[in-house]
């Protein structure tokens, strides 16, 4: 019997080593897999490369990883926000390297990795600082920049519901980078509010098919609220 569910967040991330590259889903805090990140911090690994749209908000999730000094490099589109103080401090201290990627290029580079493409030509960024030194090509009169796929060792994702085969549905704008990161990571680890029996998810509405998911852990949001 195939069962991708794990007993705990700690068990789900137990093999992530120092120096791993990790995609983390979420746009701001919507879709951020906070409990998986907390388990990663508790595990004690560092020197991580983190791929996320932002560079932490407030104190939880990616912000906590930065606060604890576990991040060597951030690959993101929008690090600077009113509540990104932990990133700001580490960056200004020279402790975190930043690779700034336009948001659509971040998405399409992740998609390219998941889809097995060697590279992509994108119009975004042409003629700007973020394309300096990169190969360009004019195709049918329009200018493009060559960008390479972005893969990762792991993805940490928050979805709404899963079954034991790893099929996923998401909730509202918490979907954001989850489906494409699941495809681009060698091991996609997903926290969900509920694991349901096989057949309970309508196959017409499954967003991420289980082939892209290696591990699932149920994190009951109500239980968290009770202990908070």
């Amino acid at each position: 019997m195939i069962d991708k569910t794990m007993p705990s967040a700690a068990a789900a991330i137990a093999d992530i080593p120092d120096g791993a590259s990790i995609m983390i889903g979420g746009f701001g805090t919507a879709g951020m897999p906070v409990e998986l990140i907390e388990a990663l911090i508790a595990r004690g690994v560092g020197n991580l490369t983190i791929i996320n749209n932002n560079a932490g908000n407030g104190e939880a999730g990616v912000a906590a990883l930065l606060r604890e000094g576990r991040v060597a490099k951030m690959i993101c589109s929008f690090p600077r926000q009113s509540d990104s103080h932990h990133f700001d401090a580490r960056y200004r201290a020279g402790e975190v390297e930043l690779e700034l990627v336009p948001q659509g290029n971040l998405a399409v580079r992740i998609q390219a990795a998941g889809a097995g493409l060697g590279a992509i030509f994108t119009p975004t960024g042409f003629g700007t600082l973020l394309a300096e030194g990169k190969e360009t090509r004019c195709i049918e009169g329009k200018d493009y920049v060559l960008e390479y796929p972005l893969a990762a060792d792991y993805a940490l994702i928050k979805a709404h519901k899963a079954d034991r085969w790893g099929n996923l549905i998401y909730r509202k704008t918490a979907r954001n980078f989850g489906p494409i990161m699941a495809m681009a990571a060698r091991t996609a680890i997903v926290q969900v509010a509920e694991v349901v029996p096989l057949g309970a998810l309508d196959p017409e509405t499954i967003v991420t098919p289980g082939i892209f998911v290696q591990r699932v852990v149920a994190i009951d949001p109500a239980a968290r609220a009770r202990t908070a």
Partner: protein
Amino acid sequence: MDRLNRQQIAARVARDIPEGAYVNLGIGLPTMVANYLPADREIFLHSENGILGMGPAPASGEEDWELINAGKQAVTLLDGGAFFHHGDSFAMMRGGHIDICVLGAFQVSIHGDLANWHTGDPDAIPAVGGAMDLAIGAKHSFVMMELLTKQGDSKLVERCTYPLTAPACISRVYTDVAVFDLGPEGATVIEMVEGMSLDELRRLSAVPLALSPNSKS
């Protein structure tokens, strides 16, 4: 002279958004345009974090923090609205499916170059978000801004001195004193506020300006 305030600029932009348009409103000032879209037009608001058919802010206490806009504010979904992932969302822009995007700007050149992501200050932490994708992707990219900075410098310039978001991407600029069309030929004034003259506008902006034969004031 009847300078427009920010609400009035937003209302002016909203007037030009037609029924059926797929529209992305950038973070900050452009977000205000949503408040002035006429109720009798069906207009589809896109948010790059995965929404079409975005609705207004929820009542206080009704926020769902898994339903937010690109500025990370709580929003709602209209009947008929849809959610999708970031790959699809940016394909909507890059693929030319979005009709209109409205962006803020640090500077816009008379040829439509846009600078709105980075001042180039070595101490600044750069952040680009979706600005570069939006600027090049929509069929029509508009800027709304006050013509002058707080220091009195024109934000409509011959050449941007700040790092570019994208070259030759903006076709129209709505400001507090005039509306300009931009293109390879330069800037054309298509509308001025009551009491503004072309000479005064040339003095304020310090850029070459043509006057549209159909201009209104």
